[in-house]
Protein backbone atom coordinates (compact mmCIF):
# COMPACT_ATOMS: atom_id res chain seq x y z
CA UNK A 1 0.00 0.00 0.00
CA UNK A 2 1.26 3.44 -0.94
CA UNK A 3 1.01 6.03 1.82
CA UNK A 4 -1.03 9.19 1.32
CA UNK A 5 2.24 11.12 1.20
CA UNK A 6 3.53 8.91 -1.64
CA UNK A 7 0.31 9.30 -3.57
CA UNK A 8 0.53 13.06 -3.17
CA UNK A 9 4.19 13.18 -4.17
CA UNK A 10 3.62 11.15 -7.35
CA UNK A 11 0.26 12.67 -8.28
CA UNK A 12 -0.24 12.47 -12.06
CA UNK A 13 -3.27 12.67 -14.35
CA UNK A 14 -2.00 11.06 -17.54
CA UNK A 15 -1.76 7.51 -18.88
CA UNK A 16 -2.01 4.71 -16.36
CA UNK A 17 -2.47 7.16 -13.50
CA UNK A 18 -6.01 7.52 -14.85
CA UNK A 19 -6.81 3.84 -14.16
CA UNK A 20 -7.55 4.60 -10.51
CA UNK A 21 -7.72 8.35 -10.64
CA UNK A 22 -11.09 8.79 -8.95
CA UNK A 23 -9.85 6.97 -5.85
CA UNK A 24 -6.68 9.08 -5.94
CA UNK A 25 -8.76 12.25 -6.21
CA UNK A 26 -10.89 11.19 -3.24
CA UNK A 27 -7.83 10.61 -1.09
CA UNK A 28 -6.36 13.95 -2.14
CA UNK A 29 -9.60 15.89 -1.51
CA UNK A 30 -9.87 14.34 1.93
CA UNK A 31 -6.24 14.50 3.01
CA UNK A 32 -4.43 17.19 1.04
CA UNK A 33 -6.82 19.34 -1.01
CA UNK A 34 -3.84 21.55 -1.84
CA UNK A 35 -1.22 18.92 -2.61
CA UNK A 36 2.32 18.94 -3.94
CA UNK A 37 3.48 16.62 -6.71
CA UNK A 38 7.06 16.11 -7.85
CA UNK A 39 6.03 15.24 -11.40
CA UNK A 40 6.61 17.49 -14.40
CA UNK A 41 8.99 19.81 -12.61
CA UNK A 42 6.85 20.02 -9.48
CA UNK A 43 3.42 21.55 -9.02
CA UNK A 44 0.71 22.28 -6.50
CA UNK A 45 -2.62 20.66 -7.26
CA UNK A 46 -6.14 21.62 -6.23
CA UNK A 47 -8.92 19.07 -5.90
CA UNK A 48 -11.77 21.08 -4.34
CA UNK A 49 -14.31 22.59 -6.73
CA UNK A 50 -14.48 25.90 -4.91
CA UNK A 51 -10.70 26.42 -5.01
CA UNK A 52 -10.53 25.59 -8.70
CA UNK A 53 -13.34 28.01 -9.59
CA UNK A 54 -11.62 30.74 -7.57
CA UNK A 55 -8.31 30.33 -9.36
CA UNK A 56 -10.05 30.20 -12.76
CA UNK A 57 -11.69 33.53 -12.06
CA UNK A 58 -8.66 35.26 -10.53
CA UNK A 59 -6.62 36.69 -13.40
CA UNK A 60 -4.79 39.07 -11.04
CA UNK A 61 -3.07 36.23 -9.22
CA UNK A 62 -2.73 33.55 -11.87
CA UNK A 63 -1.23 33.49 -15.34
CA UNK A 64 -1.38 30.76 -17.99
CA UNK A 65 2.22 31.42 -18.98
CA UNK A 66 4.38 29.72 -20.05
CA UNK A 67 1.60 27.23 -20.87
CA UNK A 68 -1.68 25.89 -19.50
CA UNK A 69 -0.76 22.35 -20.47
CA UNK A 70 1.05 20.12 -17.98
CA UNK A 71 3.31 18.79 -19.38
CA UNK A 72 3.53 21.11 -22.41
CA UNK A 73 2.22 20.03 -25.82
CA UNK A 74 4.16 22.64 -27.78
CA UNK A 75 7.49 24.44 -27.54
CA UNK A 76 5.84 27.79 -28.33
CA UNK A 77 2.98 29.64 -26.60
CA UNK A 78 -0.37 28.54 -28.00
CA UNK A 79 -3.11 31.01 -28.88
CA UNK A 80 -5.41 31.67 -27.09
CA UNK A 81 -4.84 29.13 -24.33
CA UNK A 82 -1.37 30.33 -23.25
CA UNK A 83 -2.23 34.04 -23.46
CA UNK A 84 -3.20 36.25 -20.53
CA UNK A 85 -5.65 39.14 -20.41
CA UNK A 86 -6.01 41.60 -22.04
CA UNK A 87 -4.53 40.09 -25.28
CA UNK A 88 -6.51 36.93 -24.60
CA UNK A 89 -9.80 38.68 -25.32
CA UNK A 90 -8.53 40.05 -28.64
CA UNK A 91 -7.78 36.52 -29.75
CA UNK A 92 -10.99 34.99 -28.37
CA UNK A 93 -13.18 37.64 -30.01
CA UNK A 94 -12.05 36.47 -33.44
CA UNK A 95 -13.82 33.14 -33.03
CA UNK A 96 -16.46 33.79 -30.37
CA UNK A 97 -19.14 34.69 -32.96
CA UNK A 98 -18.80 31.19 -34.42
CA UNK A 99 -19.95 29.55 -31.20
CA UNK A 100 -22.88 31.64 -29.97
CA UNK A 101 -26.26 29.94 -29.45
CA UNK A 102 -27.47 31.62 -32.66
CA UNK A 103 -24.49 30.33 -34.67
CA UNK A 104 -24.82 26.86 -33.20
CA UNK A 105 -28.46 26.60 -34.17
CA UNK A 106 -27.28 26.60 -37.79
CA UNK A 107 -24.95 23.68 -37.17
CA UNK A 108 -27.68 21.37 -35.83
CA UNK A 109 -28.59 19.86 -39.17
CA UNK A 110 -25.12 19.24 -40.58
CA UNK A 111 -24.00 17.63 -37.30
CA UNK A 112 -27.13 15.48 -37.23
CA UNK A 113 -26.73 14.36 -40.83
CA UNK A 114 -23.16 13.24 -40.22
CA UNK A 115 -24.07 11.51 -36.95
CA UNK A 116 -26.96 9.70 -38.62
CA UNK A 117 -24.83 8.41 -41.48
CA UNK A 118 -22.07 7.28 -39.15
CA UNK A 119 -24.47 5.54 -36.78
CA UNK A 120 -26.16 3.68 -39.65
CA UNK A 121 -22.85 2.67 -41.12
CA UNK A 122 -21.65 1.49 -37.74
CA UNK A 123 -24.80 -0.52 -37.06
CA UNK A 124 -24.77 -2.14 -40.50
CA UNK A 125 -21.09 -2.79 -41.01
CA UNK A 126 -20.60 -5.34 -38.29
CA UNK A 127 -17.45 -3.60 -37.10
CA UNK A 128 -17.38 -3.16 -33.35
CA UNK A 129 -14.96 -0.31 -32.63
CA UNK A 130 -17.22 2.58 -31.74
CA UNK A 131 -14.28 4.93 -31.32
CA UNK A 132 -13.05 4.77 -34.90
CA UNK A 133 -16.53 4.23 -36.32
CA UNK A 134 -18.31 6.93 -34.42
CA UNK A 135 -16.75 8.79 -31.48
CA UNK A 136 -13.71 10.03 -33.39
CA UNK A 137 -15.32 10.13 -36.80
CA UNK A 138 -18.04 12.62 -35.88
CA UNK A 139 -15.79 15.46 -34.67
CA UNK A 140 -13.21 14.68 -37.36
CA UNK A 141 -15.80 15.20 -40.07
CA UNK A 142 -17.84 18.00 -38.53
CA UNK A 143 -15.12 20.02 -36.84
CA UNK A 144 -12.70 19.66 -39.74
CA UNK A 145 -15.31 21.03 -42.13
CA UNK A 146 -16.08 23.92 -39.81
CA UNK A 147 -12.38 24.60 -39.42
CA UNK A 148 -11.69 24.31 -43.15
CA UNK A 149 -9.29 21.34 -42.93
CA UNK A 150 -9.54 19.57 -46.33
CA UNK A 151 -11.08 16.12 -46.33
CA UNK A 152 -8.15 14.43 -48.03
CA UNK A 153 -6.02 15.25 -44.98
CA UNK A 154 -8.32 13.78 -42.31
CA UNK A 155 -6.77 10.31 -42.32
CA UNK A 156 -3.55 11.83 -40.96
CA UNK A 157 -5.19 13.53 -37.99
CA UNK A 158 -5.76 10.70 -35.50
CA UNK A 159 -2.12 9.64 -35.38
CA UNK A 160 -0.93 13.23 -34.90
CA UNK A 161 -3.38 13.82 -32.07
CA UNK A 162 -2.43 10.51 -30.42
CA UNK A 163 1.28 11.26 -30.62
CA UNK A 164 0.97 14.81 -29.30
CA UNK A 165 -1.60 14.34 -26.54
CA UNK A 166 -1.17 10.75 -25.44
CA UNK A 167 2.45 9.87 -26.24
CA UNK A 168 4.00 12.99 -24.79
CA UNK A 169 4.43 11.54 -21.34
CA UNK A 170 5.82 8.25 -22.72
CA UNK A 171 7.79 9.28 -25.78
CA UNK A 172 8.44 13.04 -25.96
CA UNK A 173 10.50 12.69 -29.14
CA UNK A 174 7.62 11.17 -31.00
CA UNK A 175 5.34 13.93 -29.71
CA UNK A 176 7.79 16.56 -30.90
CA UNK A 177 7.95 14.99 -34.37
CA UNK A 178 4.16 15.07 -34.59
CA UNK A 179 4.13 18.70 -33.43
CA UNK A 180 6.55 19.58 -36.25
CA UNK A 181 4.42 17.68 -38.75
CA UNK A 182 1.26 19.52 -37.68
CA UNK A 183 3.02 22.89 -37.85
CA UNK A 184 4.36 22.12 -41.32
CA UNK A 185 0.88 21.03 -42.35
CA UNK A 186 -0.68 24.31 -41.23
CA UNK A 187 2.12 26.35 -42.73
CA UNK A 188 1.23 24.80 -46.06
CA UNK A 189 -2.53 25.11 -45.51
CA UNK A 190 -2.28 28.82 -44.67
CA UNK A 191 -0.38 29.31 -47.92
CA UNK A 192 -3.13 27.55 -49.86
CA UNK A 193 -5.78 29.70 -48.22
CA UNK A 194 -3.83 32.84 -48.99
CA UNK A 195 -3.53 31.88 -52.63
CA UNK A 196 -7.09 30.49 -52.55
CA UNK A 197 -5.99 27.32 -54.22
CA UNK A 198 -8.18 25.45 -51.79
CA UNK A 199 -11.37 24.01 -53.19
CA UNK A 200 -12.79 21.66 -50.58
CA UNK A 201 -13.39 24.39 -48.06
CA UNK A 202 -16.21 26.87 -48.12
CA UNK A 203 -15.75 30.38 -46.86
CA UNK A 204 -16.77 31.09 -43.29
CA UNK A 205 -14.48 28.44 -41.89
CA UNK A 206 -12.32 28.96 -38.82
CA UNK A 207 -9.33 29.28 -41.18
CA UNK A 208 -11.10 32.15 -42.99
CA UNK A 209 -11.94 33.91 -39.74
CA UNK A 210 -8.34 33.68 -38.58
CA UNK A 211 -6.90 34.87 -41.88
CA UNK A 212 -9.28 37.81 -42.11
CA UNK A 213 -9.00 38.84 -38.46
CA UNK A 214 -7.43 42.13 -37.47
CA UNK A 215 -6.27 43.08 -34.00
CA UNK A 216 -5.79 46.81 -33.59
CA UNK A 217 -5.81 47.11 -37.36
CA UNK A 218 -3.14 44.44 -37.94
CA UNK A 219 -3.68 40.94 -39.32
CA UNK A 220 -2.30 38.03 -37.30
CA UNK A 221 1.37 37.26 -37.93
CA UNK A 222 2.40 33.95 -39.45
CA UNK A 223 3.44 32.64 -36.03
CA UNK A 224 0.14 33.74 -34.47
CA UNK A 225 -1.85 32.03 -37.21
CA UNK A 226 0.13 28.81 -36.88
CA UNK A 227 -0.20 28.84 -33.14
CA UNK A 228 -3.98 29.40 -33.22
CA UNK A 229 -4.46 26.68 -35.85
CA UNK A 230 -2.38 24.23 -33.85
CA UNK A 231 -4.45 24.78 -30.70
CA UNK A 232 -7.77 24.53 -32.55
CA UNK A 233 -6.56 21.28 -34.07
CA UNK A 234 -5.75 19.84 -30.65
CA UNK A 235 -8.75 21.32 -28.85
CA UNK A 236 -11.48 20.64 -31.36
CA UNK A 237 -10.99 16.97 -32.17
CA UNK A 238 -9.81 14.86 -29.28
CA UNK A 239 -11.92 16.27 -26.43
CA UNK A 240 -15.22 15.76 -28.20
CA UNK A 241 -14.21 12.27 -29.28
CA UNK A 242 -13.34 11.39 -25.66
CA UNK A 243 -16.71 12.70 -24.46
CA UNK A 244 -18.67 10.63 -26.99
CA UNK A 245 -16.58 7.52 -26.38
CA UNK A 246 -16.84 7.85 -22.60
CA UNK A 247 -20.62 8.22 -22.85
CA UNK A 248 -20.91 5.04 -24.90
CA UNK A 249 -18.50 3.26 -22.54
CA UNK A 250 -20.73 4.14 -19.62
CA UNK A 251 -24.03 3.36 -21.33
CA UNK A 252 -22.71 -0.03 -22.43
CA UNK A 253 -22.53 -0.94 -18.75
CA UNK A 254 -25.57 0.89 -17.43
CA UNK A 255 -28.31 -0.73 -19.48
CA UNK A 256 -30.98 0.85 -17.37
CA UNK A 257 -29.70 4.32 -18.30
CA UNK A 258 -29.36 3.23 -21.92
CA UNK A 259 -33.01 2.15 -22.00
CA UNK A 260 -34.18 5.33 -20.31
CA UNK A 261 -32.37 7.49 -22.84
CA UNK A 262 -33.80 5.49 -25.73
CA UNK A 263 -37.31 5.83 -24.37
CA UNK A 264 -36.89 9.45 -23.43
CA UNK A 265 -34.32 11.20 -25.64
CA UNK A 266 -35.19 14.50 -23.95
CA UNK A 267 -32.99 13.32 -21.11
CA UNK A 268 -29.90 13.11 -23.32
CA UNK A 269 -28.69 16.71 -22.77
CA UNK A 270 -28.82 16.17 -19.01
CA UNK A 271 -27.06 12.82 -19.33
CA UNK A 272 -24.37 14.45 -21.46
CA UNK A 273 -23.64 17.00 -18.72
CA UNK A 274 -23.34 14.18 -16.21
CA UNK A 275 -20.83 12.31 -18.37
CA UNK A 276 -18.87 15.52 -18.89
CA UNK A 277 -18.83 15.99 -15.12
CA UNK A 278 -17.80 12.47 -14.15
CA UNK A 279 -15.61 11.35 -17.08
CA UNK A 280 -14.21 14.76 -18.06
CA UNK A 281 -12.13 14.75 -21.26
CA UNK A 282 -9.79 17.37 -19.82
CA UNK A 283 -8.82 16.15 -16.36
CA UNK A 284 -6.59 19.08 -15.49
CA UNK A 285 -5.02 22.33 -16.64
CA UNK A 286 -2.22 24.42 -15.18
CA UNK A 287 -1.62 27.99 -14.10
CA UNK A 288 1.39 29.90 -12.79
CA UNK A 289 1.10 31.93 -9.63
CA UNK A 290 2.07 35.58 -10.27
CA UNK A 291 2.40 36.73 -6.66
CA UNK A 292 2.64 35.02 -3.28
CA UNK A 293 -0.74 33.82 -2.16
CA UNK A 294 -2.47 31.37 0.17
CA UNK A 295 -4.97 28.67 -0.74
CA UNK A 296 -6.72 26.84 2.12
CA UNK A 297 -3.89 27.81 4.45
CA UNK A 298 -1.16 26.60 2.09
CA UNK A 299 1.34 29.24 1.00
CA UNK A 300 1.94 29.38 -2.74
CA UNK A 301 4.89 31.39 -4.02
CA UNK A 302 5.13 33.58 -7.08
CA UNK A 303 6.37 31.42 -9.94
CA UNK A 304 4.90 28.16 -8.57
CA UNK A 305 2.87 26.03 -10.94
CA UNK A 306 -0.69 25.24 -9.82
CA UNK A 307 -2.69 22.44 -11.43
CA UNK A 308 -6.48 22.58 -11.39
CA UNK A 309 -7.81 19.03 -11.16
CA UNK A 310 -11.16 19.51 -12.91
CA UNK A 311 -11.83 15.78 -12.66
CA UNK A 312 -11.45 15.92 -8.86
CA UNK A 313 -13.49 19.11 -8.41
CA UNK A 314 -16.21 17.52 -10.50
CA UNK A 315 -16.63 14.77 -7.88
CA UNK A 316 -16.42 17.01 -4.83
CA UNK A 317 -18.97 15.90 -2.18
CA UNK A 318 -19.32 19.51 -1.00
CA UNK A 319 -20.95 20.30 -4.35
CA UNK A 320 -22.77 17.15 -5.48
CA UNK A 321 -24.72 14.54 -3.62
CA UNK A 322 -23.48 11.03 -4.41
CA UNK A 323 -20.66 12.65 -6.40
CA UNK A 324 -19.16 9.37 -7.61
CA UNK A 325 -22.43 8.15 -9.04
CA UNK A 326 -23.29 8.79 -12.69
CA UNK A 327 -26.91 9.92 -12.52
CA UNK A 328 -28.19 10.69 -16.00
CA UNK A 329 -30.98 12.85 -14.61
CA UNK A 330 -28.90 15.03 -12.29
CA UNK A 331 -30.51 18.47 -12.42
CA UNK A 332 -28.07 20.87 -10.79
CA UNK A 333 -24.80 20.25 -12.50
CA UNK A 334 -22.45 23.18 -12.26
CA UNK A 335 -19.28 21.43 -13.33
CA UNK A 336 -15.77 22.25 -14.50
CA UNK A 337 -15.47 20.08 -17.60
CA UNK A 338 -14.97 23.18 -19.78
CA UNK A 339 -13.12 25.19 -17.17
CA UNK A 340 -14.41 28.62 -16.20
CA UNK A 341 -13.46 32.26 -16.07
CA UNK A 342 -11.93 34.10 -18.99
CA UNK A 343 -10.32 30.95 -20.44
CA UNK A 344 -13.63 29.05 -20.50
CA UNK A 345 -13.46 26.55 -23.37
CA UNK A 346 -14.14 28.46 -26.54
CA UNK A 347 -15.75 25.42 -28.14
CA UNK A 348 -17.84 24.33 -25.15
CA UNK A 349 -21.17 24.94 -26.79
CA UNK A 350 -20.10 23.17 -29.95
CA UNK A 351 -18.59 20.23 -28.03
CA UNK A 352 -21.85 19.87 -26.09
CA UNK A 353 -24.02 19.86 -29.20
CA UNK A 354 -21.80 17.33 -30.97
CA UNK A 355 -22.01 15.08 -27.92
CA UNK A 356 -25.78 15.41 -27.49
CA UNK A 357 -26.64 15.00 -31.17
CA UNK A 358 -24.13 12.16 -31.49
CA UNK A 359 -25.77 10.26 -28.64
CA UNK A 360 -29.27 10.93 -29.95
CA UNK A 361 -28.49 9.52 -33.37
CA UNK A 362 -26.42 6.61 -32.06
CA UNK A 363 -29.19 5.46 -29.73
CA UNK A 364 -31.78 5.82 -32.48
CA UNK A 365 -29.94 3.48 -34.81
CA UNK A 366 -27.75 1.09 -32.84
CA UNK A 367 -29.68 -1.52 -30.81
CA UNK A 368 -28.90 -2.28 -27.17
CA UNK A 369 -25.15 -2.59 -26.77
CA UNK A 370 -22.84 -3.92 -24.09
CA UNK A 371 -19.11 -3.75 -23.44
CA UNK A 372 -17.22 -6.18 -25.68
CA UNK A 373 -13.91 -5.96 -23.87
CA UNK A 374 -13.96 -4.96 -20.22
CA UNK A 375 -10.20 -4.36 -20.23
CA UNK A 376 -10.69 -1.25 -22.37
CA UNK A 377 -10.20 1.97 -20.42
CA UNK A 378 -12.77 4.57 -19.43
CA UNK A 379 -10.47 7.36 -20.65
CA UNK A 380 -8.79 8.48 -23.84
CA UNK A 381 -9.73 7.76 -27.43
CA UNK A 382 -8.53 4.17 -27.72
CA UNK A 383 -10.63 1.32 -29.04
CA UNK A 384 -14.13 0.81 -27.63
CA UNK A 385 -15.54 -2.59 -28.51
CA UNK A 386 -19.33 -2.76 -28.36
CA UNK A 387 -21.43 -5.90 -28.67
CA UNK A 388 -24.92 -5.67 -30.10
CA UNK A 389 -27.26 -7.80 -32.18
CA UNK A 390 -26.99 -6.90 -35.83
Amino acid at each position, binding site marked *: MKSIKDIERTMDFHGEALDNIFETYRLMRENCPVGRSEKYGGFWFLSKSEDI*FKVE*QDADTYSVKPTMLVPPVADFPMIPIDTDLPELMDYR*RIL*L*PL*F*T*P*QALAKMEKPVRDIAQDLAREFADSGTTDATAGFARALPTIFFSRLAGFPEKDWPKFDAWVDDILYERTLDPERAKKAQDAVMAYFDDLIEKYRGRTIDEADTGTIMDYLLEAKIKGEPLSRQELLSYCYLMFLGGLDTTAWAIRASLWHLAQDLDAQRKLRENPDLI*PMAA*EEILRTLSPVQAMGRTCKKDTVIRGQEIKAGDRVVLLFGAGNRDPDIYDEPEKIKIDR*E*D*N*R*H*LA*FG*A*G*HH*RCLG*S*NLGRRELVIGLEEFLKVVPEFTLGDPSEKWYGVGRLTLNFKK
Partner: protein
Amino acid sequence: MKVLLDSHRCQGHARCAAFAPETFVFDDDGFSRVREGMEDVKPENAPGVRKACANCPELAISIIED
Protein backbone atom coordinates in the same frame (compact mmCIF):
# COMPACT_ATOMS: atom_id res chain seq x y z
CA MET B 1 -39.22 36.71 -8.24
CA LYS B 2 -36.55 38.77 -10.01
CA VAL B 3 -33.52 37.61 -12.00
CA LEU B 4 -30.22 39.50 -12.31
CA LEU B 5 -27.21 38.79 -14.49
CA ASP B 6 -23.76 40.08 -13.61
CA SER B 7 -22.20 40.76 -17.00
CA HIS B 8 -18.71 41.02 -15.48
CA ARG B 9 -18.93 37.40 -14.43
CA CYS B 10 -20.67 35.98 -17.51
CA GLN B 11 -18.27 34.06 -19.75
CA GLY B 12 -20.73 32.84 -22.32
CA HIS B 13 -21.23 29.20 -21.30
CA ALA B 14 -24.83 29.52 -22.52
CA ARG B 15 -26.21 27.20 -19.88
CA CYS B 16 -28.88 29.81 -19.23
CA ALA B 17 -29.99 29.49 -22.86
CA ALA B 18 -30.41 25.77 -22.38
CA PHE B 19 -32.77 26.14 -19.42
CA ALA B 20 -34.53 29.48 -19.90
CA PRO B 21 -34.19 30.61 -23.53
CA GLU B 22 -37.14 32.95 -23.14
CA THR B 23 -35.41 34.90 -20.37
CA PHE B 24 -31.85 35.36 -21.69
CA VAL B 25 -30.49 36.88 -24.91
CA PHE B 26 -27.01 36.76 -26.34
CA ASP B 27 -24.84 39.35 -28.00
CA ASP B 28 -22.75 38.58 -31.09
CA ASP B 29 -19.87 37.28 -28.96
CA GLY B 30 -22.14 34.92 -27.03
CA PHE B 31 -22.38 36.84 -23.74
CA SER B 32 -25.74 36.71 -22.05
CA ARG B 33 -28.05 39.28 -20.56
CA VAL B 34 -31.59 39.26 -19.25
CA ARG B 35 -34.03 40.01 -22.05
CA GLU B 36 -35.73 43.37 -21.69
CA GLY B 37 -38.91 43.11 -19.69
CA MET B 38 -37.99 39.66 -18.36
CA GLU B 39 -36.35 40.81 -15.10
CA ASP B 40 -39.58 40.05 -13.28
CA VAL B 41 -39.86 36.31 -13.74
CA LYS B 42 -43.29 34.97 -14.58
CA PRO B 43 -44.30 31.91 -12.56
CA GLU B 44 -44.25 29.68 -15.64
CA ASN B 45 -40.61 30.64 -16.34
CA ALA B 46 -39.43 30.32 -12.75
CA PRO B 47 -38.34 26.64 -12.84
CA GLY B 48 -36.16 27.23 -15.91
CA VAL B 49 -34.61 30.37 -14.46
CA ARG B 50 -33.81 28.52 -11.23
CA LYS B 51 -32.08 25.79 -13.23
CA ALA B 52 -30.14 28.39 -15.21
CA CYS B 53 -29.00 29.92 -11.93
CA ALA B 54 -27.96 26.56 -10.46
CA ASN B 55 -26.08 25.52 -13.60
CA CYS B 56 -24.27 28.76 -14.46
CA PRO B 57 -20.59 27.89 -13.95
CA GLU B 58 -19.65 31.50 -13.19
CA LEU B 59 -22.41 32.14 -10.63
CA ALA B 60 -23.35 35.11 -12.81
CA ILE B 61 -27.10 34.70 -12.32
CA SER B 62 -28.85 35.62 -9.11
CA ILE B 63 -32.43 35.35 -8.06
CA ILE B 64 -34.28 37.65 -5.69
CA GLU B 65 -37.32 35.95 -4.25
CA ASP B 66 -40.42 38.04 -3.55
